[in-house]
């Protein structure tokens, strides 16, 4: 009897061990399946997110077209240009004057030593008009207006204001996103022009306090160094950057689901993503410029 008992306990132990083993194995397999599934779903969802974002961008473009045709909420557009363009003007002015003055002063002091005094004009055009102007403006606007837009829209989602628009038959994309999109794109292009005004002319005024350059000579040389391609690529860069800033900001604003804690998270995401996309688009356009000219 005692023997049988012992055998039974052994068998019990064995079966327990077997069960553990099987459980472990099943668990392992489940984990493996889980990892594959999770990776797959992540790829799928990021692909889905990409197409969703593309669809969103397409809808903004389409609605922008209708917006420009109908001129419905022009007030919103005006205010967007006011907030994004006019109010960012002082920062843009200070940065561009400083940058331009540095280039002129350094250029005038340094370049003639290599017998390349005339090179200051192409450098001014390259830096102010073509390269740094658009990207610096874009950074400032992304940090200023991008965050403002995504925060504003995020808060609207949280307080159900977006749903209120939908319930009243007002499309939030055409009513909220499109004026911001157009406003930021226009503002970016206008600010780019202002960056050039301050960077090329304002900095000249600053420079005359230190060294003497003849104004007519300066303008003449500048106009000779400037090409239509410079202006086009510069405007294209700022328009693309403006589109990126506004689309990314509104996209992440709408991504807020329920809680107000999501709002700053999405604002940060919109700035980060925006910066990366701006740099990439700038690099792309610069390459295009060099291939073209």
């Amino acid at each position, binding site marked *: 009897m005692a023997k049988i008992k012992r055998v039974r306990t052994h068998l019990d132990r064995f079966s327990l061990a077997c069960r553990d083993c099987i459980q472990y194995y099943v668990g392992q397999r489940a984990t493996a399946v889980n990892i594959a599934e999770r990776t797959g779903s992540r790829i799928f969802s990021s692909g889905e997110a990409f197409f969703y974002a593309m669809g969103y961008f397409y809808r903004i473009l389409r609605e922008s077209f209708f917006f420009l045709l109908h001129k419905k909420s022009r007030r919103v557009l005006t205010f967007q240009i006011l907030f994004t363009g006019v109010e960012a003007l002082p920062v843009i002015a200070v940065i561009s004057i400083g940058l331009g003055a540095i280039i002129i002063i350094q250029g005038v002091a340094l370049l003639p030593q290599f017998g390349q005094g005339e090179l200051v004009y192409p450098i001014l055009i390259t830096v102010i008009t073509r390269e740094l102007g658009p990207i610096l403006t874009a950074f400032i606007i992304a940090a200023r207006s991008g965050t403002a837009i995504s925060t504003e829209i995020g808060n609207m989602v949280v307080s159900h204001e977006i749903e*209120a628009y*939908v*319930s009243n*038959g*007002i499309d939030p994309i055409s009513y909220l996103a499109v004026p911001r999109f157009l406003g930021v794109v226009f503002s970016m292009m206008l600010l780019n022009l202002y960056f050039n005004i301050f960077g090329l002319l304002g900095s000249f005024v600053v420079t005359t306090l230190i060294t003497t350059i003849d104004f007519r000579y300066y303008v003449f040389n500048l106009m000779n160094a400037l090409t239509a391609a410079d202006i086009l690529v510069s405007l294209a860069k700022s328009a693309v950057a403006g589109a990126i800033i506004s689309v990314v900001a509104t996209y992440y604003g709408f991504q807020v689901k329920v809680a107000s804690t999501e709002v700053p998270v999405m604002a940060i995401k919109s700035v980060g993503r925006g910066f990366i996309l701006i740099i990439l688009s700038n690099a792309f356009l610069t390459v295009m410029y060099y291939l073209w000219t």
Partner: protein
Amino acid sequence: MIIELQNLSFTSGGETFLQDISCRIEEGSVVLVMGPGGSGKTLLLKLMAGIVPATGGEILVDGEPLSRMSDRQILKTNLRQGFVFQDAALWQNLSLRQNLSLPVQYHFPSRSVQEINSSIDLLVRKLGFRANLELRPAHLSGGNRTTVSIMRALMLDPELCFMDEPSNGLDGATHDNLLELLKELKSGGRTLVIASHDGEIASLLADWILVLDEGRLLAFDTVQNLKHTEDERVRAILREVLDLSTTYDTDILEILGESDENPFA
């Protein structure tokens, strides 16, 4: 405007919030949506209004499925219906007057300011709204915000109006005014879908009652039929829900089929 739900369900993040709901809301009827907190009343209203897209099933508006409508068509449908949000959801960056006039201005740009203002004034008078219309929503009390939200929903004179807890936070006088207004709408042949725990609305207006519990449709029937329902759960919920509203209206007790017995006694 007829709304028909076919096996409607809504899931998000792996969690099911509404499941398998089918019903048909006839034109000109007043449907009271009831259920304990978290049962999915607000969500059901938003799904029906096309504000939130359903993840399963179908919603037919005048026989046409919502899922097959373009965004533009859905917005057009939305134009024919009003929605009162539980938290009012007023546009914070606009004054009250702008909140009320924006939908009209957006859809009917030709309408003059005087025309819009006169319809605003009419609603203000009907609801006895006293606050300054040039204020921003942030300056209002909760009750006043709800009132403005009701006014906004009615600005476009909708055929169908969804109201999510419209009587929340209203003072007595405004509450009475609201009841009058709802009665007027009902007699005008408007369809009303109201999520409310308000016994007065239930007793005075409701034609149909829709009972939700944990995302499932527990009952959808006329008030008369529900009076005699055998379903214990429905009875319990109705009792529970109406308890919360602490009303002593006898009609409600009648609905529950227990007119001879006062539950609060």
